[in-house]
């Protein structure tokens, strides 16, 4: 953890009305590691991720990036600092082509001043970087394809390319493999392994085979609280976790 960047949540709390969705959560991820966040539906995984990305304000607790308190920095502000999230539901911009979606993410992240009178699509440097990113995530379609013409699997790849376009050091990925065919899951798992070299990844995921094969560390949430955290081997042997998942299967 000495090199690279680390994102750390300390004692995060969140209520939605009477519902206590996050209970004094400690969670951290750093460059070179994949930290998976698992747990049954409604455990508060996405909420925790939203609190770490700056989308949701926490009732209590702090978030630190390399030790610096970034609790009061909002969603776009944290993107500037290199923390970027994806969403469970694919949400590319339907009005733009595949290449333009990535270019839009590039310009949203890098342009801090309004530019009114240049053509956004005329920036060939940005267009090439967008095509490179598409290539990096293994998406080999014509950049001028409308996003509405992509199937579910390729849309998920596009989502990752858009996150990478913001130049993040920490990726917060919310079920990137949801709804993918087995072959696609394997390819995306390979991609995450490759991305781990230069990024830290906090991964919310339901596919247990994937989680146990690629994660360096696993945290199990139930009803908003951490019930176990450790290496995949430790988690597999944890009595509480087994009970939780057996309960779910029964």
């Amino acid at each position, binding site marked *: 953890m000495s090199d690279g960047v680390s994102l750390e949540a300390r004692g995060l709390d969140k209520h939605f009305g009477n519902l206590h969705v996050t209970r004094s959560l400690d969670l951290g991820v750093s460059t070179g590691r994949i930290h998976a966040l698992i747990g049954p539906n409604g455990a508060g995984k996405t909420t925790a991720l939203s609190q770490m990305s700056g*989308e949701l304000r926490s009732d209590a607790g702090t978030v630190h990036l390399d030790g610096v308190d970034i609790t009061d920095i909002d969603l776009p502000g944290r993107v500037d600092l290199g923390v*970027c999230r994806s969403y469970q539901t694919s949400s590319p911009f339907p009005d733009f082509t595949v290449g333009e979606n990535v270019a839009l993410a590039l310009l949203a992240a890098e342009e801090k001043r309004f530019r*009114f009178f240049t053509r956004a699509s005329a920036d060939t440097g940005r267009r090439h970087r967008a095509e490179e990113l598409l290539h990096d995530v293994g*998406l080999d379609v014509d950049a001028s394809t*409308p996003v509405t013409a992509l199937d579910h699997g390729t849309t998920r790849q596009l989502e990752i390319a858009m996150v990478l*376009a*913001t130049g993040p050091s920490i990726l917060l990925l919310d079920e990137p493999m949801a709804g993918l065919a087995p072959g696609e899951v394997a390819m995306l798992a390979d991609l995450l392994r490759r991305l781990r070299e230069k990024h830290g990844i906090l991964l919310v995921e339901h596919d247990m085979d994937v989680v146990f094969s690629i994660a360096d560390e696993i945290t199990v949430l139930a009803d908003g609280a951490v019930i176990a955290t450790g290496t995949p081997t430790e988690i597999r042997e944890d009595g509480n976790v087994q009970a939780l998942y057996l309960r779910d299967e029964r």
Partner: protein
Amino acid sequence: MSRIAPGRDGIPDETHVERTTWWRPLLITVLVLVLVGIAPFLVDAVGLGYLQRSLTRVVILGLAAVALDFIVGYGGLVSLGHAMFLALGSYTTGVLLVHLSRGEGLATGQALIAWPLSMLVGALFGLGFGVLALRTRGVYFIMVTLAFNQMMFFLFNTLEPYGGDDGVRLPERSRLGPLSLEADLTFFYVCFTLLVLTVIVFNILIRSPFGWVVRGARDNELRMKAIGARTPRYQLAAFAISASFASLAGALAVNESQFLSPDISHWTQSGELLVMIIVGGMGSLIGGVIGAGVLLVLEELAIDFTNNWQFFVGIGLILIVLVARRGVAGLLLGRHRNV
């Protein structure tokens, strides 16, 4: 994963944005503008010369509708307050003309001063109201802009030095540099030139990096923030730009009617601008001009046949919206979009 070919089968046409013929929306834009440009001679040729003044109003309200379409069609922010920006432009230019006619100092009939000043006033009020209105979205945004509109309407009604709710006649129009605008045809072409410039400006804006962020925020504002854009800043700037051009239209409108009246700030005028872009085609820019033309010409024609013209105009509007979800511009564009 899977390779896919663009434009494969099974893709619904409505969502399939065609990019190969990017020039088509621009061609339609140019054709509509050319048609408007030669319209004064066309109506003369077919013996409808009395429509001349309506054409000037088509151009002026078309300009305001194009500005409104920028934030509604491309920004997803439905404003029911644009009549107040029309009125702010009217009052800025009108008040200067009133004082000029009274022979008082600091007054001017010079359009080169009054019209940019009108745009500045519109932009400043747009920033002020925009900051507050943009704390909300959706239906609440519509309601807040409507509330500001009503507030300004009552304010204009109390301006006794300028006739209060009766308004006041303007003996003269603005002068554009050395050019007198008293001749209706001259005035038409000055307004037309400004309309063409406005259409060009907004067509550039929607293709700029700024416009991309505004359009992205329309479709998914949260996602736009999640890739690093501070969307409210962009939306505020877009709102102020739109307001500023609406105020330019207001400055022209008070010159057209030569009558400064708070009626132009009534919320139904905001509604009429919205109807224009719905009929003409939201998210096309040129649709605002088409809508203004259809609406005002329908009105003029129907009024000759019946006193209940609004009833028949209403039926016409329902038919247009039923037949063409994306308005008249949508019919002309087919699967294409102006982006």
